[in-house]
């Protein structure tokens, strides 16, 4: 308890959320778990993924990315015991059960296993798989936390890049695109974390959590400890706080999925719409980010996916619409390129992005089926492919009436074009199309001010994604925002005028009546 108090003192100014995690590190109330009760809960809740023997081989075991933990090893990725302790503290296991692991299939169980003791019993049962007894009982030395500041972030950035310390795996922009093949202890392929996506941080992106990962490493992966004095890349406590602050700052991005953002808003501009994905005008666009999920709805399904969001913005003028499609992809998949062969597990396909639009803007609520339309409601599919060493990137068009009925079309005759750029783990593709085309029967005619259904699909070629194996969205909206018009102001003035005149007339006539009376 005294230790806890001193901790509180050091962190006297810390936020209450942080205090909660401090308490979690010192489970004063950790009663010894009842293994038998733990087993009962395990067999109902956990066995499906982690398996009867705790080897991570439940029925779903080989479908999940990352794979479920094998408890028989006793190794846990997210732990607070120092790097030279193989095993976690009980509170670490307790925390994973309670809060789950974001970005994985492991949910937070505290809302179902409401009784804390149940979760402690589970901890005891899980430890039994690896015959773990005493916990290390030590935690990482946090020193004095350095609060985040511009200065600290700048220092952290320098350390991050110094000698490619972190950027070697996490990439120049932190997008996890360092070209290195990594493996976890289960033998499965692992990828360095994309540090700009905080919702995928297994143990939260609170600087204290990031500090812990940097200090302890991530057991069972190639993420090393930077507190190990034997390592050339070792960092002082202070430096680790700077790096933690820098990493947290990377996560402050405007490309976050928000449930209320369902509309791609294209702003009207004068002059040409941009065709260059790096045109500075894109910095002024309104961004909308959508989550893409693996295609598990129709045959052939895909479960192991890599890309998970797409950010869209758009501009239009009198004749054309330009959309910027932006997504993080650790690999630039150009089949035939030796660089991609080095990192891809299997023969890579081209990277690809596709925009789906209905051929006719729906008059009522009915839309085409969200995957490639249906027999009575066809869709336009506008896509871009990254190209191979032998062929350049390309814009492609197709019309679909269901996944079994997709007809390729000539993109040039529609006037579709696409230009891309790939930098530090991010694709940016500009797709351009005329607002109206000559083929009214087969092409969507884009109209200002109407809500037009739109959906997206994404293929990571180096993840063996091709055909129906890809990630996608359901229907969202595209809106060509009308330029400001004076009509609302004029009507408002007219209404106000009429009401004023009416009132004045009433008052006047009332006055007359009184005079007469």
């Amino acid at each position, binding site marked *: 308890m005294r230790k806890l108090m001193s901790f509180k003192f050091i962190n006297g100014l810390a936020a209450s959320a942080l205090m909660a995690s401090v308490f979690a590190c010192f489970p004063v109330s950790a009663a010894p778990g009842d293994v038998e009760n733990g087993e009962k809960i395990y067999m109902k809740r956990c066995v499906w993924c982690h398996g009867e023997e705790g080897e991570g081989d439940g029925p779903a075991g080989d479908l999940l990315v990352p794979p479920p933990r094998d408890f028989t090893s006793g190794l846990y990725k997210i732990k607070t015991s120092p790097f030279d302790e193989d095993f976690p503290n009980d509170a670490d296991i307790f925390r994973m059960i309670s809060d789950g692991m974001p970005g994985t*299939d492991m949910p937070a169980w505290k809302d179902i296993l409401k009784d804390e003791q149940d979760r402690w019993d589970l901890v005891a049962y899980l430890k039994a798989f690896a015959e773990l007894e005493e916990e290390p009982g030590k935690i990482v030395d946090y020193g004095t936390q350095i609060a985040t500041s511009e200065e600290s972030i700048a220092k952290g950035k320098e350390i991050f890049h110094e000698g490619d310390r972190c950027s070697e795996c996490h990439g120049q922009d932190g997008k996890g695109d360092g070209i290195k093949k990594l493996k976890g202890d289960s033998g499965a392929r692992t990828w360095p974390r994309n540090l700009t996506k905080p919702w995928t941080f297994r143990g939260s992106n609170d600087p204290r959590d990031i500090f812990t990962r940097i200090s302890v490493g991530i057991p069972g992966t190639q993420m090393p400890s930077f507190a190990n004095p034997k390592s050339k890349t070792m960092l002082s406590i202070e430096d680790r706080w700077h790096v933690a602050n820098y990493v947290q700052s990377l996560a402050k991005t405007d490309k976050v999925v928000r449930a209320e953002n369902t509309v791609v808003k294209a702003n009207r501009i004068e002059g040409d719409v941009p065709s260059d994905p790096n045109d500075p005008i894109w910095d002024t666009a309104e961004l909308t980010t959508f*989550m893409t999920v*693996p295609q598990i*709805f129709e045959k052939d399904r895909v479960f192991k996916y890599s890309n998970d969001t797409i950010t869209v913005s758009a501009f239009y003028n009198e004749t054309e619409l330009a959309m910027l499609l932006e997504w993080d992809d650790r690999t630039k998949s150009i089949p035939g390129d030796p660089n991609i062969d080095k990192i891809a597990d299997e023969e890579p396909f081209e990277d690809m992005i596709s925009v789906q639009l209905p051929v006719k803007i729906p008059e009522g609520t*009915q839309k085409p089926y969200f995957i490639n339309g249906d027999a009575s409601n066809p869709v336009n599919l506008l896509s871009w492919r990254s190209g191979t060493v032998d062929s350049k990137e390309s814009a492609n068009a197709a019309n679909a009436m269901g996944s079994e009925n997709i007809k390729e079309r000539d993109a040039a005759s529609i006037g579709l074009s696409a230009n891309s750029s790939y930098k530090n783990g991010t694709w940016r593709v500009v797709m351009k199309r005329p607002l109206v085309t000559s083929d009214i029967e087969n092409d969507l005619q884009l109209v200002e001010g109407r809500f037009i259904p739109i959906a997206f699909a994404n293929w990571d070629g180096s993840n063996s994604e091709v055909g129906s194996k890809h990630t996608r969205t*359901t229907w969202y909206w595209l809106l060509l*925002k009308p330029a400001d018009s004076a009509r609302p*102001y004029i009507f408002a003035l007219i209404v106000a005028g009429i009401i004023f005149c009416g009132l004045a007339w009433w008052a006047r006539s009332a006055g007359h009546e009184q005079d007469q009376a």
Partner: protein
Amino acid sequence: MKIPRLLQAVLVLVGVYGGFVLVFDVILEQVIPSSLLNMYMFFVAAGTYMVFTFNEESTEQIVAPIKALVEDPSRKKIRNVVFVVLPLFFGLFTYQQMKPSFEAPLELRTIHPAPPAAVKVFGKRYNLLTLVNPYRKFEKEDPEKFDELVNEGGAVYIKNCQYCHGDKLDGKGPYAQGLNPVPLNFQDVGTIAQLQEAYLFWRISTGGPGLPKEATPWLSAMPVWEDFLTEDEIWKVILFLYDYTGYSPRSWEHE
């Protein structure tokens, strides 16, 4: 102190509106479509008007202050203020109404549409009124066998359904956030606890595309499970859904 009748009427309207917003938007965190709220408020306003103008006397009490405001020379000051504020208010309202909205159109859909009388799947025709889970009887007859069937259903669930409906059957699987409409939460008392097993069989085997129009079959990401699972697997997974959540399916029989 007696509150003037006119003020009473206004307070009723404001109170109902505020209460509605407080209960639904703030407490329940359910955003209520403004069209629905407007319609509701229209009826409340009509009702209030009827109550407050029930007889001549009460009508007089309502109308008098308004008349006085316009006609009574001693209220000139207030009148001038009202004459400026009212037109401004309606002008602003008109502007708000006419200004183009960039909010997504609302899509109303029926979550539990009425099932058809019969469904054709697996090359057979099933009468949903008489269809029962062939494994349900083992719950009483052979509990050990029943547990085994539930376990097999669990394996089907975890390999196919958890991505959207979640490990905890709470509709919050890892892909749930990317889907609209959101996956159903089986832990909620308003879902499987209110349905018969035959209904679930229909929903699972024909999936999103098998929904009637009022339930927007083009939006639902629920796969057509007839394409992936056997009839047996579907009945077992239904056993699992009820067993895991602790609910009992509805049935025609009286319990």
